[in-house]
């Protein structure tokens, strides 16, 4: 076949489908080449019934294909209808192995040797790549599969899962419920998976539900008609060869990234970093004229974005320059800016005026702005207050702001100019705001959410460097030298170092030479002293504070050991830099002397209380080092009425998010199983629909768009997240009137030892079978008057909430009681 089409679209994902449908709609000759036998292969491979999100919500869809949030089946079905409706010329089973030629005359070579000629090519092949094959004789047998659609489809089979990554682990665990599962791991451990999956697979192996063959490789696969199982897999294990009869083999060995293929087409990448993206023009054209890249391959992983780009790129090729779909959104955002011009002019002005954004690719900058809010403020208006829990990031587009660093002295302010930014402390440490910020004259601010800024920092090195340096200067200013000028501090900031510590890592040990001072940027530290051969925690240092000043001031050796309680970042100033700083600020010395005096007094107080150190280290072990708010129960006051749990259940759809009785106790202080609201929440790390958020008041909560995948439950080190179905039944009115809904009382308990003692909660059995379970956790009664219901419902005052600021005072009070 040698007819030339105007547009060849490679890959029938959301972007490719949309592009081909648009071409068909407007009657442009086209062909859509799909490697597999069905459209949208990546989405076909999603788990059965998976809910697919339509983020970003605010972005309108611009495509002849329909798309809105729904199940995988519904979306694929609609696209299939769309393909027919628009009579899209789609060719299945057509893997493109090479693209050559130039604009107007591209030659696309297919796997079967045939060729397709096209004037323009749109690459929408995604990042999934092709799955790695087993690579042993017999791997073409029908029992070998590279995906797993529905694990419940198989029952009573012997299944061998090959691989040690997340997909292999998740498949093996899901299959183990109804099948005999072997997991073939090439190495001696699981090193390529997420922490949550590591814990999951080790638990499953320990329980004997999955048999793991470590340091084992597949050798060959043969059919055994008439054998006990239809196939025989030969394996090389570390102890010798093994013949394993089986029904099915699921190989999850990852995929070959498509980059090699893309580069072979002539497209250039800016660096060898595997995450780097091809450089594209604003019309998605690569460095090869006529060759366009859309969707995940170009850095836009969301379905809706890819579909819009598919539409737009066809319009560009037709010589019809359309404004991007987000244009009206941006126009609405910019409308309030005094002297507002067109969207592109405003965007350009922002990138010119704000050095942090200058290096950012225009496409990416657009996206950043799309998530941001523009504030036009009157002079004196408060942007945020000290101790607010917001963690967004602000850049000044016009006018200025004033940072009020000392509440007692409101006149003491640091002015910021256009192009500068603020709010990076809260952003980076996850802690409360350290200062109040007021708007100046003609103030126009861009407020960007934390997630978008972190994405920017991870992809634009220049931006990261600017933020780091500014953080250091501001930290020094607010920590030691409010009067010092930024210009004076810049050379000092340049000499300071950013250090990262793992949980438990030692910053310096008692007796070491005092060589540096550490400002804690995120995480927290424990101060330990060795007393009588035992290490005792004497203090706790939260983010925003500093350690090590004593040794530097007195030129002595370290008087204590300092260790990170969680993953921690500090900024260190070495002794010479510190001396330079002191020299520049004579007043600083006396200020620091006062701090040292207070710290010594506090340390001695804590040391005088024998159990204080033990209590601190107990609480740190329970995660208080990274907590922003934790529920504690004073056992000397708790009567065990469980009213806290009932209050929690009653105010949260019937499922209690706390388990009072569970959790450890030390010296009358009980830490129930309840959310710590970590600074850098573990649960947020891997939430596919981004359903776990932090509210301005600090609560970490699960939103309604939870898909019930269970990642957060596995990632939480404190076991405070559960997947809950519909709530259990309410007690009858009569029993409620007399005794409340006590679910367990001492008189009704099982008395003998022979019978199983059943413990309450974890109502897995409740609710209709197959009901959708969603993650539930403490949201600190967000949106309810009067604060957390658990504390409000405690009749005796035993339940209390403690934040890091109150932590030391709490320990002192508790320690003085026992």
């Amino acid at each position, binding site marked *: 076949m040698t007819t030339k089409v105007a547009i060849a679209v490679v890959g029938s994902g959301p972007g490719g489908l949309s592009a081909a449908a648009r071409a068909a709609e407007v009657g442009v000759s086209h062909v859509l080449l799909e490697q597999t036998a069905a459209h949208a292969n990546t989405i076909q491979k999603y788990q059965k019934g998976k809910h697919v999100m339509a983020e970003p919500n605010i972005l309108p869809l611009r495509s002849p294909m329909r798309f809105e949030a729904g199940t995988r089946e519904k979306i694929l079905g609609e696209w299939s209808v769309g393909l027919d409706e628009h009579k899209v010329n789609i060719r299945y089973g057509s893997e493109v192995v090479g693209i050559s030629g130039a604009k107007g005359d591209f030659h696309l070579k297919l796997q079967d040797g045939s060729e397709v000629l096209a004037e323009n090519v749109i690459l929408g092949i995604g990042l999934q790549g092709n799955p790695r094959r087993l690579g042993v004789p017999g791997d073409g047998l029908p029992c070998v599969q590279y995906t797993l659609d529905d694990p419940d489809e198989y029952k009573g089979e012997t299944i061998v899962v090959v691989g040690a990554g997340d997909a292999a682990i998740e498949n093996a665990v899901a299959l183990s419920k109804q099948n005999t599962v072997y997991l073939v791991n090439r190495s001696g451990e699981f090193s390529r998976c997420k922490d949550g999956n590591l814990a999951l697979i080790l638990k499953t192996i320990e329980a004997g539900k999955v048999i793991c063959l470590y340091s084992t490789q597949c050798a060959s696969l043969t059919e055994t008609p008439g054998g006990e199982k239809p196939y025989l897999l030969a394996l090389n294990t570390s102890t010798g060869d093994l013949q394993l009869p089986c029904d099915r083999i699921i190989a999850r060995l990852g995929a070959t990234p498509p980059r090699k293929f893309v580069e072979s087409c002539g497209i250039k990448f800016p660096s060898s970093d595997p995450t780097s993206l091809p450089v594209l023009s604003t019309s998605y054209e690569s460095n090869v004229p006529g060759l366009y890249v859309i969707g995940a391959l170009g850095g836009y992983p969301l379905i809706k974005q890819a579909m819009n780009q598919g539409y737009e790129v066809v319009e560009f090729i037709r010589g019809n320059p359309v404004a991007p779909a987000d244009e009206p959104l941006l126009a609405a955002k910019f409308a309030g800016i005094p002297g507002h011009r067109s969207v592109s002019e405003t965007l350009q002005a922002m990138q010119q005026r704000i050095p942090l954004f200058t290096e950012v690719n225009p496409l990416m900058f657009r996206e950043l702005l799309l998530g941001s809010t523009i504030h036009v403020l009157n002079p004196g208006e408060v942007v945020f207050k000290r101790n607010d829990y917001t963690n967004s990031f602000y850049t000044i587009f016009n006018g200025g702001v004033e940072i009020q660093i000392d509440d007692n002295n409101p006149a003491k302010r640091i002015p910021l100019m256009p192009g500068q930014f603020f709010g990076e402390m809260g952003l980076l440490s996850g802690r409360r705001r350290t200062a109040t910020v007021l708007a100046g004259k003609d103030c126009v601010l861009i407020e960007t959410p934390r997630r978008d800024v972190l994405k920017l920092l991870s992809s634009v090195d220049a931006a990261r460097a600017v933020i780091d340096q500014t953080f250091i200067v501001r930290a020094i200013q607010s920590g030691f030298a409010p009067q010092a000028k930024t210009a004076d501090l810049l050379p000092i900031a340049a000499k300071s170092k950013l250090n990262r510590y793992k949980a438990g890592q030692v910053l310096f040990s008692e007796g070491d030479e005092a060589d540096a001072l550490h400002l804690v940027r995120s995480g927290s530290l424990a101060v330990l002293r060795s007393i009588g051969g035992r290490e005792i925690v004497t203090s706790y240092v939260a983010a925003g504070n500093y350690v090590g000043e004593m040794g530097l001031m007195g030129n002595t050796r370290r008087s204590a050991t300092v260790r990170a309680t969680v993953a921690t970042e500090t900024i260190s100033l070495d002794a010479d830099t510190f001396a330079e700083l002191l020299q520049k600020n004579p007043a600083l010395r006396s200020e620091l002397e006062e701090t040292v005096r207070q710290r010594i007094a506090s340390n001695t107080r804590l040391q005088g209380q024998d159990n204080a150190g033990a209590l601190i280290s107990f609480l740190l072990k329970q995660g208080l080092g990274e907590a922003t708010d934790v529920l504690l129960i004073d*056992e000397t006051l708790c*009567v065990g009425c469980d009213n806290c749990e009932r209050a929690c259940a009653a105010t949260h759809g019937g499922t209690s998010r706390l388990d009072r009785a569970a959790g450890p*106790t030390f010296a009358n202080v009980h830490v129930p199983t309840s959310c710590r609201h970590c600074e850098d929440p573990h649960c947020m790390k891997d939430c596919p629909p981004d359903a776990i958020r932090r509210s301005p008041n600090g609560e970490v909560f699960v939103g309604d768009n939870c898909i019930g995948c269970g990642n957060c439950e596995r990632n939480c080190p404190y076991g405070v997240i559960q997947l809950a179905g519909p709530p259990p039944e309410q007690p009858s009115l009569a029993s409620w009137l007399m*005794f409340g809904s006590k679910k367990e*009382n001492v008189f009704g308990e099982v008395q003998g*030892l022979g019978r199983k003692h059943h413990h309450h909660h974890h109502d897995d059995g409740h609710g209709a079978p197959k009901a959708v379970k969603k993650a539930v956790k403490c949201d600190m009664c967000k949106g309810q008057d*009067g604060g957390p219901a658990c504390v409000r*419902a405690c009749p005796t*005052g035993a339940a209390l909430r403690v934040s890091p600021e109150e932590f030391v005072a709490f320990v002192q009070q508790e320690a003085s009681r026992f």
Partner: protein
Amino acid sequence: MHESMLSYAQRRYLKVAIGLCALSIVAYVWHDPLSPPNGGTWLGYTLGGIGAALILWLTALGVRKRSYSSSLGTLRGWTSAHIYLGLALIVVATLHTGFQFGWNLHTLCYVLMMIVIGSGIFGMVVYLRYPQLMSSNRAGAKPDVLLEEINDLDQRSLRVANEMPRRFGDVLRSNREGTRIGGSTRAILGGLDLSTINLPSAGGSSQQVANPEQAALLDWLADELARSTDGELTKRIGDLLSVIATRRNQLRRLRRDAQIRGWLEIWLYVHVPVTLALIGTLIAHVVSVFLYW
């Protein structure tokens, strides 16, 4: 930072209660009715009205306790007020009676009220004292952990017994089956040990005997130990003795825990039903006073 329900808000409700009592007493002393003091004078009606209102409000704690989303004060504040104003009711209601008692509905009402207050005082004392006892008895180990430990000890002792003559295994199994924690309300509240064990008797049959605190078993093992001449067996019996002694201690803690939790709950089984009876009688008292007097 945190304190018990009694010291809530610098004992605000204690002050209110004392004020109410003082006012009632002064009015009672100052008041000089024509007839001897009784509920029918204007002061009698006033005190009665205050008393009845207090009773209804005190009962409302049960409702407030279950209004989990209520932001009307904290439950601790309510409990604090409940305690102090409940105590003040003794003075208010007693003055309301004018010390006129008899075998009638009105006195029944008063008696029921005093039972409610009495059980409430008991409950308050228990609430203030027992959590500390429970915490130190548990020493960080919750009941289910203790049960698990006892199960482990049983497994351990049965493994030891596997290497010994059969009677040891039989006795240990019967000990496990005969172990009771609680068993009846009396046993829970009294911390009684109703455990039994079947011990081999002289005739080769076995006999069920009481085994409180594992004493019968420990005695039997001690006896076996004294009679044993086999070195290996002697050592094993010694092992069993120490395991059973630990088991006894853990059982003791479990029983103590159940006992404490029992006392923390039992008073409510008097306090709440009698309150309902009191409200019924109170309505009858008020209605009869207005209808028939």
